[in-house]
Every structure is written in C-alpha cells, then in structure tokens.
C-alpha cells in the first residue's frame, strides 16, 4: 500500500516536474547572455550560482502558490499541533528548495564536464559559491512562503517572484548589499578566488534570516522560546547592519596562478586556468608582429597575460583580453593587436589615467601594423593613409615600439599626421 501512496510534498511526479522546470530556468540563466564561461570553469561555476536569478523567483512563486493554498485550508493548525509541526508546515517550501538546489548542482556538474572538456582547470575552493548561493536561495524561498501566507492566492506567486527578482537585481546594482547577488560575474576570475570569509558572512546572514522568515509564516504560536527568536534576529541585524555600515565586503581575493607558455621569440604565456585560446593567440601575435620584426624592432622575449594582483615578468609584454576572450575558443585579433602595442607592460599604461599621447601613439602604431599585414588600410586619400606606407612611418613605428617596450614615455612622439 505504501508504494502506491504519495507523500504529499514528496510526490515523485510533482517533484520531477518542478525539478525540470527549475532546471530549465537555470539553463536559460546560464545561456541567456551567451556562454563566455565555456572555457573557464571558475566563471562557469559563478554563473551556475548566478542561475538563482531565475531559479529563485520561480521557486518563490511556486512556494507562494503552495502556501496560499494551504493557508486557505487552515492546514497549519492541524500540522502545527503535531510534534513535527514546523517541519510539516514548511515542508512544501523546503522541498522546492531541495529540488532547486538539486537542479543547480546538476548544472554545476554539466558545466564542469563541458569546461573541463575545453581544457579548463578545476579550483575546488570556488565551490564555496554554490553553498553561499544555496543559502541565499533558502532566503528567497522563505520570502516566497511568507508572501504566500500573507497575500491572496492569485496575487501571491507573481508578487513573490518579483520581490525576489528585485532583491537580486538591487544586489547586483549596489542598491542593496551584494549578498542577494548569488553569482553571474562578468569577468573570468583569472588569478582570483572567493574570499571565504565573505561567503561565510553571506551564509551567516541568509540562513538565520530564512529561518526567521519561515517562522514568521506561522499564524499560530509555536513553542519557540523568545531567546531563540531574539538570537536569530540579533545575528541577522548584526551581519545585515555590517553590510550597510561598512559596505560590501570584498568578494574576491587575488591568488597566485600558474602560467602555461607556448612558442618562442616571443613566447606567449597565459594563465593555465584560461589557456584555451593559447595556440591561436600565439599564432596571431606572431603574425601581427611580423612587420615589426621585418622593420628591425626588438620584441620582448614574451607576452604574458595581464592578471590582477600579479606583476608582469621583466621583459614581457602585456597580454590583454576583453569580454572574457581568454576563455574563448579562438583569438580575438583586436585584443591581440592591443596586446602587441603593450610590449613593456608599463604601469603607466595601467593607471587610471594613462598618458594621452601614449595612447595616441599606440593607436597609430596599431593602424600601421594592420596596414602592413593587410588587415585594414586607412583611406588612401587621408593624411594617415598617405603617410602610413612611407619609410618614415616605418622608422617612427620601430622607434615608438622601442619606447613603449622600455616604458620611455617622455621620448614618445606623435606621428607627423
């Protein structure tokens, strides 16, 4: 008989349906903005945690629907008269949470397989973001339960979903403490790791807050002693006010990262964790550097990926990537060109306000290189177009490149056009 009997909130068909729904929502969140994480496991895992941006509101709506139905039937009075009353009352919400976390973990496994197959490397410390995300998700679900027990049935689900989505958006836009933004970083996190203390603070805020919100859904008095409620409130208030008073704690810290290198004269080095396009980048750098070599310029011995918190080696150019290009399958020619005209890794060029004339020199030098390799020609009727193919331009290019390589900005001169 028991095998035929569903267990209310644990009905396998219902759970499977909700799992599919939440998995689908998480998948949409993962691919909606493209897949820049494809070659970077760290970024992918952060996006998996960020998938709660859709899983959370959808779950809150589902829970609000369940709770509003139960409220209408006074189910809480019967359930809460039992020894396991609180669990019984909150079980629908907890089951949605379990299903949502399971969906998120499935996504984590999936992106791990995909990114590893693309040559990315694991960084187990990053898994902490999944625990932090799950704790905030618990708060999202609890909010759905609270709204479901307080608002009429038809209104509760959409309002719960909007409130939870709003908290995420405000957390991501600095309108609220960042704790509500569970993930979805825009960079690749190369050379960075989560500050575990910060993630622990997120959990220390979200979990007691979720328990308090869950307790507040009860319309009957429970046997909870006031000190327990007061203690939870104190923890939430303390951590929450800390976010407000001291601002968002640093979410990331710099960590040493290994490099992997390819080729010679120059050697091209990328972070091992994001080395996916290394061959293509090295080939493109050699191709674009060829006119400089032919003109007699001295190249640095290597180009090294620019990584936050890490100094570039001596005699190394700075390999710069944009739009998570270090995780792409191919080289972005423009990014390689920008890297090529950064042959010295000069700190002045990474300052908040780089020397304007140096930037102008870099732009013209890049145009000269493009013209020489045949990628792009300035209009032949323009002054630049007429000048760029002259021997004078070649001499200027070699001299300018040398000054950029040796960070001699005072000697840099603008082209005569």
């Amino acid at each position, binding site marked *: *008989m*028991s095998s035929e*009997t*569903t*267990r*209310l909130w644990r009905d396998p068909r219902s759970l499977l349906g909700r799992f599919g729904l939440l998995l689908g929502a998480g998948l949409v969140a993962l691919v909606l903005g493209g897949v820049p994480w494809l070659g970077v496991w760290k970024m992918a895992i952060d996006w998996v945690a960020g998938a709660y941006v859709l899983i959370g509101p959808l779950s809150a709506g589902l829970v609000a629907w369940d709770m509003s*139905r*139960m409220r*209408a*039937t*006074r*189910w809480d*009075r*019967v*359930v*809460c*008269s*039992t*020894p*396991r*009353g609180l*669990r*019984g009352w909150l079980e629908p919400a907890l089951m949605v949470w379990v299903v949502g976390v399971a969906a998120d973990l499935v996504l984590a496994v999936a992106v791990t397989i995909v990114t590893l197959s693309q040559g990315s490397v694991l960084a187990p410390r990053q898994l902490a973001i999944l625990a932090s995300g799950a704790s905030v998700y618990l708060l999202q679900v609890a909010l759905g339960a609270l709204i479901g027990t307080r608002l009429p049935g038809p209104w509760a689900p959409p309002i719960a979903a909007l409130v939870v989505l709003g908290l995420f958006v405000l957390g991501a836009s600095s309108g609220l403490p960042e704790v509500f933004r569970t993930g979805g970083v825009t960079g690749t996190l190369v050379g960075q790791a989560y500050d575990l203390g910060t993630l622990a603070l997120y959990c220390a805020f979200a979990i007691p807050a979720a328990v308090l919100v869950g307790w507040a859904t009860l319309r*009957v*008095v429970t*046997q909870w002693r006031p000190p327990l409620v007061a203690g939870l409130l104190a923890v939430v208030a303390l951590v929450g006010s800390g976010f407000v008073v001291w601002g968002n704690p640093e979410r990331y810290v710099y960590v040493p990262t290994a490099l992997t290198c390819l080729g010679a004269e120059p050697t091209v080095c990328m972070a091992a964790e994001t080395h996916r396009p290394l061959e293509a980048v090295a080939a493109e750098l050699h191709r674009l550097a060829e006119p400089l070599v032919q003109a007699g310029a001295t190249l640095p011995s290597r180009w090294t990926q620019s990584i936050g918190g890490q100094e570039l080696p001596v005699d190394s150019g700075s390999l710069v990537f944009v739009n998570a290009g270090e995780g792409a399958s191919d080289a972005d020619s423009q990014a390689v060109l920008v890297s090529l005209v950064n042959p010295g890794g000069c700190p002045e060029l990474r300052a908040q306000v780089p020397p304007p004339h140096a930037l102008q020199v870099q732009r013209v030098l890049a145009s000269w290189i493009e013209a020489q390799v045949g990628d792009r020609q300035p209009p032949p009727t323009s002054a630049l177009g007429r000048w760029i193919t002259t021997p004078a331009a070649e001499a200027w290019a070699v001299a300018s490149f040398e000054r950029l390589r040796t960070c001699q900005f005072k000697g840099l001169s603008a082209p005569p056009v």
Partner: protein
Amino acid sequence: MHLAVSDVSHAYGASVQALADVSFTLRPGVTGLVGVNGAGKSTLMHVLAGLLAPGQGSVVFTDDSGGDVRRWRDLRSRIALMPQSFDVPRNVRTLDAVAYLTSLRGFPSPESTERAASALHAVGLADRSRKPIRSLSGGMLRRVAFAQAVASDPDVLLLDEPTTGLDPEQRVLVRELVRGRRDRGITLVSSHVMEDLEAVADQVVVLDGGELIFEGSMADLLVGHANAEEAFMALLLARREPS
C-alpha cells in the same frame, strides 16, 4: 496517567481574556468540555494541543498519585487534535493527508500509511481513501479530521466540536467512535450539543467566560435534572443570577 491543567490563563491582546486561572484534571475516559460560544473551549483545546502558549499556568502529565511525570511539551507526540475547522489542500488524496499527519506524529512509513488506512476504515471512509479531498462532502471531511486524530492512537485525544455539520447518522457514528476510546487514554470532547456529550462523556468540565464553573462526573451534573442540557442551563443561570 492524568493530564493536570493548573491555573492556565490566556488572553488575546489586552482586552479579551479567553481563559482565566483554569484548573482541572483530565482522567482516562471521555471528558466533555462544555460552554456557550466564546466560553473559551477552543482556546483551551489549542493550549492543550500546543497551538497556543498559555499566558500563565501549566499543563503536565501526572501519575495516579498526582506527581509530575513529564512536562506536556515533552509528550506532544502523544496528544492529537481534531480541530473545529479542518481542511486539506484539495488535490491531496485522503489517505495521503491522513498518513502524512500521522507521520508528523512520529510514525515512519509504511506504518503511518497502515495506521491511516485503518483509521479511515474505522470512520467508514475506506472506499474514499484513494479519492482526492475535494471529492469529499463536509461530513466526510469531519470524519477525515477524526481519522487523522485517532490514527496515531494518542494518549490524549482532543476533539473540538466533532459532530458539527454531521447528519444524524454520522453523529451516531462519531459517538460510537468516541465511546470506543473510553478505555484508550484520555479523550476531551468539546461540544455545545449536550445530547452528544451526555451520550459519550463520563466526566464534564464546564467553562463560562473563560472560567471553570463545573468539574465532575456526568452523573453529578445530571443530579436533579432531566438531561444534560437542562443541567447546563441551570449552571449558567445560577452563575448569572444576581446574588
């Protein structure tokens, strides 16, 4: 084992005193809880069921000599409530609802399911156990409420207006079920239908305005009266007559 209620008070806000220093002892057998609407019956039921914390006073299990056995809070799994109004999410199957509530009282599956099926059989709903709750009539729902309360075979069974909304045939059935509990621990039946209580109760507790005005046997209540209703009205009149 007895359940001793000592000086229990409960107020809703500052102005509504629902219970005021109520003390009595529930003994094995069936006790009727009587009172007019607003007398405090449901509040007392909810206090005993743990849904309300008494503002003051205590509820403890005692042994036959009157000594404390354990605090009520530690014995919650042995108390079951049939609330005055009871409903279940409409899409849930009847058996599932009863089995689930039984599991919350500490019975693992499949025992909770077996107990639920047995309780539904006892209230004459075996043939509806696979049907969703929404297919049941109001009277059937009251019987489901009874079934979920007795499925765990509690030491203390609290029945809040168990016959409300039932037709005469179903009322007789519920009376029989309550009588069947006489030798199975403490049963407290709240009702304003004196005829029902007269048929099932050995002991009677009468509340009025949140205060206890009678505690004794049904036989004592009936002394000098034709029936329980007349006796009850006499109690109320005596209390309200100007002295």
